[in-house]
């Protein structure tokens, strides 16, 4: 009981050190990867501050960070707001009649949609040249999961056409030059799935 105040001082001191280290590392990493994407790895490996905070990736510390939520950097929407991706699912019946168009699988709560949307950032992998990368496969699995959910929710649905678009709303600078400019939807992935493609555990 005598040292209880010292205990709190110590615990918070550790929290401050870790928070500063995680965020310093995160800031350097996100800045370099955003502005110097081509040579990010070599720049990062030479950055002294980045290397000095490497200790947070050592196992006892990374475990602590993971279990306490302190692993996160606080640079939300930074250094710049990321682009969004839009999905479109068109469900067709056996005779190829369009029976449903939707942007998301049917979820009952808005908060669930917010969670699903947070995973949409992974679609940027479709710009990756390495077609065999694990990340790209993960994207395909996610798209398939979304599409199958939409399809399986429609009793009469036979197959679903799924599309992923990159959404670009005109920037302020662009609207200055061209006030009538409209949003651009760039198709980056298109895939058809049938009910036979459904994973075993969903059938």
């Amino acid at each position, binding site marked *: 009981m005598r040292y209880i105040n010292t205990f709190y001082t110590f615990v918070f001191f550790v929290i*401050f050190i870790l*928070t500063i280290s995680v*965020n310093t590392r995160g800031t350097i990493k996100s800045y370099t990867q955003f502005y110097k994407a081509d040579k990010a790895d070599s720049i990062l490996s030479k950055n002294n501050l980045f290397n000095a905070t490497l200790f947070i990736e050592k196992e006892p510390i990374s475990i602590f960070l993971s279990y306490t939520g302190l692993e996160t950097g606080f640079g939300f929407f930074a250094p710049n707001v990321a682009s969004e991706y839009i999905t479109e699912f068109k469900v067709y019946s056996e005779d190829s009649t369009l029976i449903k168009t939707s942007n998301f699988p049917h979820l009952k709560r808005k908060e*669930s949609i*917010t969670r699903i949307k947070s995973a949409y950032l992974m679609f940027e992998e479709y710009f990756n040249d390495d077609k065999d990368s694990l990340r790209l496969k993960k994207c395909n699995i996610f798209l398939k999961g979304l599409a199958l959910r939409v399809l399986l929710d429609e009793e009469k649905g036979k197959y679903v056409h799924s599309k992923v678009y990159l959404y670009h*709303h005109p*920037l302020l600078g662009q609207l200055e030059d061209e006030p009538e400019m409209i949003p651009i939807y760039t198709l980056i992935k298109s895939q058809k799935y049938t009910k036979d493609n459904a994973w075993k555990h969903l059938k």
Partner: protein
Amino acid sequence: MLGNTLSNKVNLEHKDDYLVFFRMAIALFVGIHFISIYQDLPYLFGEEALIPNKVTDIYVPNYDISLYRFLKITNLDPAFAWSILTFLFGMAVLFLLLGFLTQPSAILLLLLHLLLVKTNVFFNYGVDYFTSICLFFLCFLPSNVSMSIDSLIFKTLMKKVRNKLNFQRIRVYLQVFMVISYFFSGFDKLLGHNWRNGESIWKTLTLPYSNLDFNINLEWLVNYQWIMIGMGWSVIIVEMCYFLINIETLKKYWLIAIIAMHFGIALVLNLYFFSTIMIILNLTAYYNFEAAKHSPIKYPKLLTKALN
């Protein structure tokens, strides 16, 4: 005069209203947040997850716990495991709210929260990390010294703890944590050129999935770009210079500004839970609960007094 100041200081040192608020607000928050996704749990973290759990498991470090791993090890029936998790979750929320076995309840709730969110990390966002952080704080903070069942059961112990603890100092630590968090949040934005020229604010307002709930017409802003440049810089300054909230004369305005910013995030980006948890943290760190308690129930006055 000096006597008065000293007694104020002693008073402050033993005031734990902010911790009681923190405990209750976080317990309610975690409970409501869980309910808000409960019906969709199978598609988010359950057997029918939109990204199969065995795929996301590849991306979860070996040392992390997840419901998927737990089920794999124990071979429990998933439906039974979900019922147990839901029951324990509910109990832990209730215990934390009432301040019964407070720290063990917080530990249990943190573990259950992690079991859930680590099952599918791709469906996590800022709110989940802040929930973990808040629950972690509640695992060791003395939030049960008053207004809790613990304080009734362990009367003598709690009295001893109350006399020994410097609650004001603990509050200062929470304030420092907030200052660090906001500093990095603002600094990272400062590094982005689009935050400095208003483009990021414009982009945020025009993202296809934002502003869907209230459909506020914001297109007119395109003719007043200086507003967006101003908003971008305001966000940077309010966050990065959050430490200025500690200047007594600025405290009221800074707290209002940061809460207004989070209201804005809730309204425009529809990130209600994220905004709520940030507002809870801000109020815990800086709201003057003591002044609010002694004010007559006239809300505008109460707000002014509490913020002073």
